[in-house]
């Protein structure tokens, strides 16, 4: 009969398609974004951040950047920035989701937790190769133009996000660059962070336990490359931050600067992302040429 009746055939095909659809696509609405995966700390976007998010969509950053840290150890270590893997409740305000399917560039789900300043972002967005020479990220200097805020308030209403007059005032005089940076700095920051070295305020061990560079060289270099090279240069020659080669500062001073930062001037604090040993290793590495 099926060989002869196209109407019955079409109905049957539809039913067959709907079985898997119902179970794996429709049914999960019951569990996902419900109370069970709610995270109280997760806040909706401010008008400026939402504008940034829309620009992220306009520029198609999602073609190179994912936004989910998988539960794999290496993912958590590389992209978690202390916030661990991604949880469902973190995305409840994301319409659409921007998880992406390619990592031509690094995952950005927790980029806000990475010690990067607005100045760093701006420089990087304007000319990524000036910060990371081998990067293939396009230059986004053209985002240095006034932000169109015509729809900002309507967006908040449509998305049912709370906002205040102060939030809207914040938009005044902002550029597209400011908006996208505000979005970058929000990503992943709602989640309670596990502080690797929260207790480190002042040096606990008053002096550097690593006097022999050889023993720690490889590890120190690796940490430096990951955390510091983008501002101080691959060879410590200085780019966004000052040159660190042959620093004349004392070891304790260096320790203090690295752990507490000089945030007003664009040097982030690393006390929450690096533990004490790692910071001392970096100090040893910086002092390399003066020993």
């Amino acid at each position: 009969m099926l060989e002869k009746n196209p109407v019955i055939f079409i109905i049957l095909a539809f039913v067959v398609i709907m079985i898997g659809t119902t179970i794996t696509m429709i049914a999960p609405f019951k569990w996902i974004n419900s109370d069970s995966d709610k995270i109280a700390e997760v806040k909706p976007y401010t008008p400026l951040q939402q504008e940034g998010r829309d620009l992220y969509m306009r520029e198609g950053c999602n073609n190179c950047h994912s936004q989910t840290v998988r539960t794999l150890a290496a993912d958590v270590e590389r992209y978690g920035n202390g916030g661990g893997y991604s949880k469902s409740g973190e995305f409840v305000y994301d319409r659409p989701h921007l998880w992406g399917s390619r990592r031509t560039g690094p995952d950005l789900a927790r980029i806000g937790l990475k010690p990067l300043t607005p100045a760093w972002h701006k420089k990087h967005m304007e000319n990524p190769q000036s910060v990371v020479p081998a990067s293939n990220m396009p230059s986004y200097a053209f985002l240095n133009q006034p932000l169109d805020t015509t729809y900002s308030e309507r967006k908040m209403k449509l998305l049912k996000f709370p906002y205040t007059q102060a939030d809207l005032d914040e938009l005044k005089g902002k550029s597209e660059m400011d908006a996208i940076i505000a979005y970058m700095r929000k990503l992943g920051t709602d989640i309670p962070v596990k502080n690797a070295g929260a207790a480190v305020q002042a040096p606990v061990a008053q002096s550097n336990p690593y006097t022999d560079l050889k023993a720690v060289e490889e590890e120190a270099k690796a940490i430096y490359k990951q955390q510091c090279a983008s501002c101080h240069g691959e060879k410590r020659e200085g780019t966004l931050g000052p040159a660190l080669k042959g620093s004349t500062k004392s070891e304790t001073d260096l320790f203090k600067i690295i752990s507490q930062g000089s945030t007003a001037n664009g040097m982030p604090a690393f006390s929450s992302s690096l533990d004490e040993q790692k910071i001392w290793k970096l100090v040893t590495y910086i002092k390399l040429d003066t020993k």
Partner: protein
Amino acid sequence: MKASTRYVDDSVKGFITWSIIWGTIAVVVGIVISLQLAWPQLNVAPYLTYGRLRPIHTNAGIFGWGIGSFIAMFFYITQRLTKTPLWSPKLARVTLWIFNVAIASAAVTLAMGINRTKEYAELEWPLAIVVAILWVLFSINVFMTILKRKEEQMYISLWYIMAALVGVTVLYVVNNLGMPLHLFKSYSAFAGTNDANVQWWYGHNAVAMVLTVPPLAIFYYFLPKITNNPIYSHRMGIIAFWSLIFMYLWTGAHHLLWTPVPDWIQTVAMAFSIMLIAPSWGAVMNGYLTMNGQWEKMKSNYLVKFMIVGITFYGLQTLQGPMQAVRSFSAFIHYTDWVPGHVHMGTMGWVSMILFGATYYVTTTLSDTEIYSIKLANAHFWLVLVGQLIYSITMWIAGVQQGSMLLATNPDGTLHYSFMETMIAIFPYYKIRAISGFIYLAGLALFIYNIYKTFQKGAESSVAKA
């Protein structure tokens, strides 16, 4: 003898022409973005940055080249299998107009950055509505032709065609649901993890209902035509058909392994992906067994080459896909260049090979003449085959290399390589991939020239006859 007079084929010709044009644009943009990945200085203007061009490439490829050709072939096949002229030739011409307007507007709006970001559903809502209308008009035309048919039996190709009509409609409409802000911007109707789950239910079934089912319909029709042998087993085709359209819908979450999507959905997706090997290989074996006793045609008939190599890539694709759906393997290659390797074996190998073969065949029948040059067709075959193999193989190597570097940790749990070290390692492959694109484009140029010349030859000989 001239059967084509009974059928209405001007729209078939129109869709063939335009799908080739959009396909060429897809390939050229593909080459541009492959060059940009190796040389970022090539991002010369905002509307020519990688992030805006990549969706133009995928949309021109899947919608322009893929869907455009499928519409041509469905019009052609349906008329022949039902022994009935197209229900409404006028509607078909309108469909072609809407098709071209939709694809052109897609390219322009995506370049402007008007983009929903959901993969393969990037078009903003007014355009998405146009696409939906286009598809429904096309579906009605095909379906009415089937209803009014003179041939009672429905050959397996018609099954695949009807399944695609229903499947694409459901998928496209649901994944495009949204809340419009204004004419050029909307927000998804679904949020976060739900949105991701809906997206990949859609995304993977775009692979099923657009990049698998239609080429299979075309394959099942043309292989017997080309070889003058009936398909090996109609029954096997039917069993494979129902299990295929049943299983595909369960597998979307294999794009979301290790993410916050609930574990059981991931596990189900993994299991069904592996089960999919059976119906997929049902089609492959059906093709191979049809060739029984006449494998020498691989040498003597240029069209057989396209069909059999095409179905072979489908076979490889449906072994590789399930492998990628296994959690442990996904951990390794997900997000890396391995996946574009997989994608292009499917699009450049399977889908395009079948379409090249079918287009040659249809062009010669519509023109009622022989192909302009078999030699050129053979050169075309080898160039696109070599281009595609270089593309996929380099990307698989790059993916494995980067994947293993990204996961490598030191004994104390810290990472062995920085992100940039893993990236610098794969730059050479990006450059080779760009070269492979030019090889493929050269093959495509021969194809276009040959098709053009054949149509011209047909026009001349029909004038001479008249």
